[in-house]
């Protein structure tokens, strides 16, 4: 009963309007190639600072949902993923558009996104309270290991090199120690600068790391002439529904994979959609038709990437450990608001949580009408926004947004410096996600580590404190697995390639 009362809170006119606004803004930014969902959230986060926590959460969730979905338009119609999570959508979406089924592909992606999104929200509603129960027994050491697990996972997943991922994560962790220490009160790495005394503000750092590199690369080349393939004839909703119903197992499997991947700390939509795409191809009757315009490919990727929205909120809200990169930004925004995540979100703060879950549900449902309308009528004008307006607008929002967090012009300078540094590092194969996760998880990891250290010293056995508990051991095992699994995999693959010379032909 309580649940319904709280859920009705999401239906207040303000929250409805915010959800609508968020989804629309998200779709527009997501549809623009080069602007990711993480960036959509980062650029718009400052707008939410003045709001009540539940309204802010609803708006951020709506932006996230819209952006992940919006990425599919460009993937299907111009063969350029609007967001990284839509990369796999180009595999089948674009061939569909080329043979004149672009409108159908957009409809399918809309249906899949709504289904995936709803599965994710359902998982959030059902699994988060369970995880909260477990999380109640977590002590500082467990939180420390969880943070480490998130960092090892994201490092192992960085496409270039695990070791580069580790260096990036370490860099992020060191950045998080700048300023006054959480425990002990040491002043660290400020080099006498009063500006750094308060530490590096997380959200402004995230804005810098995610938005500035994009801006730098946007101005470096002239606007690409994106040609929309295929004439849209209509919405073809009925046809789309028929295909979706035929592929219901595929939809559910992909949405489940998406949710599962998102629950893992740090891994987001791009990984989820690639994994579910390859699973859909593996179990299909005619795997060869994938990549040539099989509608099931579009269903699989889009269901998976939208399921990451709800799934990613599970660890974000319950543990304060971001499930996906956009969640890292949202978590930072919540911290700015002084909103504490944790198991109490399902007890004392249940009102906010359930209102938010209902809002996310609402935003996902709004995708259907909004998505079909924008995909049909507005996509062409969105991708033809001239760079000469896009670049200054985004730049303006990063500056005003960063300034608004602490009313500090120095934060803007720090944001910019980190952005330039992030661009340079990204160029040499150090991705921003490990750095960002390190920055976000730094305080959690340090607090857990130092408290564990104190507890261990008091009880006389450091080893037993850190490696004693069953939960700790499980998390450590998972971390080790995440580091060494790709290595084993790479070796096996190398051997396989040695054996089969025509490795390209076999899937």
């Amino acid at each position: 009963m309580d649940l319904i009362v709280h859920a009705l809170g999401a239906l207040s006119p303000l929250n409805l309007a915010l959800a609508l606004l968020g989804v629309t803004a998200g779709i527009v930014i997501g549809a623009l190639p080069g602007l990711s969902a993480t960036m959509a959230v980062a650029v718009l986060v400052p707008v939410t600072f003045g709001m009540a926590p539940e309204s802010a959460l609803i708006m951020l969730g709506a932006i996230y949902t819209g952006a992940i979905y919006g990425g599919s338009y460009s993937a299907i119609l111009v063969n350029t993923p609007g967001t990284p999570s839509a990369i796999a959508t180009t595999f089948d979406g674009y061939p569909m558009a080329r043979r004149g089924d672009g409108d159908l592909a957009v409809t399918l992606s809309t249906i899949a996104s709504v289904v995936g999104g709803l599965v994710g929200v359902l998982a959030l509603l059902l699994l988060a309270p369970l995880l909260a129960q477990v999380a109640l027994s977590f002590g500082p050491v467990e939180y420390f290991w969880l943070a480490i697990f998130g960092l090892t996972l994201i490092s192992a997943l960085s496409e270039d090199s695990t070791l580069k991922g580790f260096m990036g994560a370490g860099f992020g962790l060191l950045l998080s120690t700048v300023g006054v220490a959480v425990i002990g009160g040491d002043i660290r790495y400020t080099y006498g600068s009063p500006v750094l005394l308060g530490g590096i503000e997380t959200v402004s750092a995230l804005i810098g790391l995610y938005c500035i590199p994009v801006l730098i690369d946007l101005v470096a080349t002239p606007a690409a002439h994106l040609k929309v393939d295929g004439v849209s004839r209509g919405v073809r909703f009925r046809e789309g529904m028929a295909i979706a119903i035929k592929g219901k197992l595929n939809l559910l499997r992909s949405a489940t994979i998406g949710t599962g991947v998102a629950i893992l700390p740090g891994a987001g939509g791009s990984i989820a959609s690639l994994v579910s795409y390859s699973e859909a191809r593996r179990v299909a009757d005619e795997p060869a038709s994938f990549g040539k315009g099989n509608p099931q490919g579009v269903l699989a990727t889009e269901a998976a990437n939208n399921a990451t929205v709800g799934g990613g909120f599970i660890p974000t809200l319950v543990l304060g450990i971001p499930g996906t990169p956009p969640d890292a930004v949202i978590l930072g925004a919540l911290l700015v608001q002084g909103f504490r995540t944790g198991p109490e979100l399902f007890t004392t703060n249940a009102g906010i949580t359930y209102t938010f879950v209902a809002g996310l549900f609402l935003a996902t449902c709004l995708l259907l009408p909004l998505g079909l309308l924008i995909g049909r009528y507005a996509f062409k004008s969105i991708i033809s926004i001239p760079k000469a307006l896009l670049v200054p607008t985004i730049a303006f929002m990063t500056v005003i947004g960063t300034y608004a967090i602490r009313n500090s012009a120095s934060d803007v300078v720090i944001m910019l410096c980190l952005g330039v540094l992030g661009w340079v590092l990204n160029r040499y194969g150090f991705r921003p996600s490990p750095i960002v996760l390190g920055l976000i998880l730094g305080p959690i990891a340090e607090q857990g580590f130092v408290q564990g250290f104190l507890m261990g010293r008091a009880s006389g056995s450091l080893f037993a404190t850190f490696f004693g508990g069953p939960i700790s051991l499980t998390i450590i095992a998972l971390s080790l697995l995440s580091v060494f699994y790709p290595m084993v995999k790479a070796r096996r693959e190398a051997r396989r390639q040695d054996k089969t010379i025509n490795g390209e032909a076999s899937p």
Partner: protein
Amino acid sequence: MSAVHNRSTGHDTSTGHNTSAAGKKKHAIQASCSRASEYLLPTLFVAGAALCLWETREMSQLGAVFPAVISLVVIVAGLLRLGQLGLRGVVANHERGSDSSSDPSSDSSSDASSDSGSGSTPRRLALVGIMLAWALALPWLGFLLTGLASFVGLMVVAQYRRWSPRRLAGHLLTGAMLVAFFYALFALVLNVPLPAGRWFTL
């Protein structure tokens, strides 16, 4: 892509036989950019982490333990990476370096010589320069003035086609409207005290 590949082949289990050293040699590491940079970056990370480690000696034990451990991890990761590069060898990423600028304006000669890959380096620098000037001038000149000035500046940096009077007027008008809109949103609706400019209030 690798995720697809990994997962699709990842169902048979393997205990991992030791691959021969000769097998390793075949799979030289693909650099993200040039070969030298692939060695330079880990070296810089090791140096930076060593500096951070050095500085922990002035902190209390509680404050030092975390940054010290992290610095050590970074140093180890950096050294491992250098070792890996040395053992397996590096190939430069030609795909990235060779792509000469597709940018019709300004100097294309300096682009080809610097190892910045595709795109216009002067424009990149101009963007960073304008944004830095913006951030530094913010407290002095106020939000509205710096906002408008940088908006126009960035507009020029991002524009590749020729300005026709109509396009220029249209862009300027849209820009002014956007700045006004966001200013109103933050200053009036969200109650963020935006700087009015110290020079004007003196």
